[in-house]
């Protein structure tokens, strides 16, 4: 399957929320090394989705291909998975700060399974991101830094969420990372409630404090 074919499955024309699917891993899929293939692409059941998830947009913030698998699981539970991965591949020959290729390969592999799932037109969105993305640690300056952040412009605005009946955002992951905290603080100011659900756990309400000015800039 080509990257473009896979993109059509993840972002079917005219479906709600799919305008936010970032094309980067799909466009560059052809350049990925086969070494990044995940031979054990097993999709868990998202049986934790219960009444806590009503009127909620989800942000899946798990490591690498695990976030893609969780996206497929949430699709089976009625969500529209929206991949917002935005990391690029490294210069050939260079060691990279982040493995962005595994996610790309996983998206292509998962597309066939996603195609078999019927997602309702009014499905709520589950935005998928890789929690390893902000690994900016460089052992030395010669490394290729392809770490990346999620920015406010990568998601719908708080007003858009509210207009579409969404009153809370649940982050599925170990923590609310620094980049998401900046965006979600803005959402909180607009009266959207923020929750954190550790994998398979019950969502717990989070009151976010104002991020430092430096973090915002």
């Amino acid at each position: 399957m080509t990257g473009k074919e896979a993109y059509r499955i993840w972002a079917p024309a005219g479906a709600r929320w799919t305008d936010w699917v970032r094309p980067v891993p799909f466009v560059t899929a052809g350049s990925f090394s086969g070494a990044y293939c995940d031979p054990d692409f097993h999709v868990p059941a998202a049986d934790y989705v219960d009444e806590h998830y009503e009127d909620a947009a989800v942000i899946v913030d798990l490591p690498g291909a695990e976030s893609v698998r969780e996206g497929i699981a949430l699709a089976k539970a009625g969500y529209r998975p929206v991949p917002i991965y935005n990391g690029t591949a490294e210069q050939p020959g260079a060691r990279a700060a982040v493995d962005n290729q595994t996610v790309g390969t996983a998206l292509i592999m998962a597309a066939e399974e996603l195609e078999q799932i019927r997602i309702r037109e009014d499905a709520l969105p589950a935005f998928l991101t890789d929690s390893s993305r902000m690994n900016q640690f460089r052992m030395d300056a010669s490394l290729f830094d392809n770490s990346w952040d999620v920015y406010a412009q990568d998601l719908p605005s708080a007003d858009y969420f509210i207009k579409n009946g969404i009153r809370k955002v649940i982050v599925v992951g170990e923590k609310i990372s620094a980049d998401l905290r900046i965006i979600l603080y803005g959402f909180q100011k607009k009266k959207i409630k923020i929750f954190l659900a550790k994998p398979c756990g019950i969502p717990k309400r989070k009151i976010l404090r104002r991020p430092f000015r430096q973090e915002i800039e």
Partner: protein
Amino acid sequence: MKLIPVRKDLYEEYRLTVMFDCYKWDPQFLDHNTVARYALALTQEEHEELMGLTEALDRETRAAELFLNTHPKIARPLELPGSMRREIRSMGDYEPDKHIRLMRYDFHPVEEGGWAVSEVNSDVPGGFAEASLMPETVVRFLDGEGNYWYKDFGDILTDAIQEKTAAGGRIMLVHCTCYSDDRQVMQFLGDRLSERGFHVIYGAADHLRFRDRQAYSILDGNEGKIDAIVRFTPLEWLTEMKPKRWQGYFDTLTVSCNHPAAIYAQTKRFPLVWDALEKNGVSMSVWRALLPETVEVKDAAGKEDFIFKPAYGRVGEKIAIREACGEEEYQKILKDVRRHPKRYLAQKRFHSRPLPGGSGEKFHICLGSYTVNGKHAGYYARLSETPRIDSNAADLPVLIEGRNGHDR
């Protein structure tokens, strides 16, 4: 000049093609689709007029930067950052002919007729693929028939790089490697350069070191001499880099696009040195005819219809136009202007003439016109519902009426 709609039934396919075949990796910004549902068609006459104005502006800009480079006292009102001022002293023997000079001038149609120019993107203009591949692509999706041609910016820039770089040479495309928005621009150019047989290295500003004024790559697995640098990291970001590893950029003999001399016209405070330039025989008459009156922030007090622009703003960021910003953003910018007046300038507002789209819509246009080494090199346009053309604007391919095909 007119907007031609993309066929409604083909728009989704067009957007997908733009993403996958035209390096448009950021098709959405917040709630805004950034792939316009139109193309912009210029008449042959409009194109010739714009081409003439662009090249005339470019002659003035290049003459000004050469003069400023050897007259630092005259450059003082530009308020370049202190760290940069120290380094530009080493650019005294800058020879423009040894490098590639790329600029983009932003034109706007105005209500009284003709054009206003809002700025020159002198240091690191973007929009490469939009100016090269989108025009060719959009023709297949337009409503109605017509004969159109376009200038392939990518071919022109690649020719210019090829002319000054040894065959098969190693070219580093310097950008912020964390940003896919930067990589999309570099990837387009990198693919074009690879087709010409160059060895392309995607790297960050701190992957270069300089020895005896020659650039070397330290990027893991890609070490060694570099024959040309194409930089997409803005110079003012580069000089904030820590640890400090950027000094060598300013006096390197390695072919550069753009050389740091680009900073003189990049700051939006550039017009504040025109009086001094003209006293020294450097004419800025075309600029004066096209750029709205520009003054220091303090000199705009009590004057009506002035807006504030940051000296190093990009894609319309932090420009204070009340109805184009939300009130909260507007007040925030004004607060920053009061706190740091030298980081801004005041400019008389021009009144953009919107173009009609379909079903009663009207759109404001920013038409970027490129030069490479002094010659006109194509167009990149954006379209917006508001007069401020910022990150919410949509990319608009530019066509010229009259015949089919493309020109280098």
